[in-house]
């Protein structure tokens, strides 16, 4: 761990905030992608069932 001295809270706060925001963004993009993919697969299965 580098010696951050009197700026430890500043530097760690900036890294913590950024990593949390980016992690939430990545998780949301992946979650939304899976949600839509599953819903589309279900809708296409229903359509295939109706057609025959």
């Amino acid at each position: 761990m580098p010696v951050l001295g009197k700026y430890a809270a500043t530097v760690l706060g900036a890294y913590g905030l950024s990593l949390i925001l980016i992690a939430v963004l990545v998780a949301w993009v992946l979650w939304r992608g899976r949600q839509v993919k599953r819903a589309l697969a279900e809708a296409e299965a229903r359509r295939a069932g109706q057609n025959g």
Partner: protein
Amino acid sequence: MSLWEYANPARFMALSGRLLPWLTALAVAALGVGLLWGFFFTPDDYRQGATVKIIYLHVPSAMVAINAWFMMLVASLIWLVRRHHVSALAARAAAPVGLVMTLVALGTGAIWGQPMWGTWWAWDPRLTSFLILFLFYLGYLALWAAVDDPDTAADLTSILCLVGSVFAVLSRYAVNFWSQGLHQGASLSLDKEENVADVFYQPLLVAIGGFVLLFLALVLTGTRTQIRARRLKALVALERMG
């Protein structure tokens, strides 16, 4: 083969599906190397002390925040001129990424500014234009969500994107337009005299590469989701019609 062939959703899905694993792996590697190198293996700055380590987050996120809007501008113009749905959906997919990057740049800037300038915030030209860019991102996403017809939403958001580009340019060049305010000039320059020192510059370039690759991976993933959502909406509409 023409670039426009990838405006076909099926071709875009096939190509992006092949690219995504590589882009994701490269993004994780570059971000990991850039941030770890910058955080653990660079010295303190003689004036800014250890706070200089914030540069590896602040500069890349700010660059991506501004350039994401320019990418949205190009995609919006393609939609307005050639009516390719994939380009409108790519612009929509880029907006949440740009929004979060703007928030990261504003947040890290405020945290960095407090010990260096003695204040979290100032109505400085660059900070203010960046805050307005953040509000444009919010407005852009709200407009997409508010309009039910996707083509009308794409038209309206494209116009909003054109207007917001003024603030994206201002965010980038505010320091040059107005020689006042607290914010310094560009950290990266073709003029070696104005650049940050090599010891900070090299990990910074890797971190910037990581942020750009992360942006591309998230936009590709988001565009694929938007294409599927559009197809889902069409199927649900067909079901309702019986």
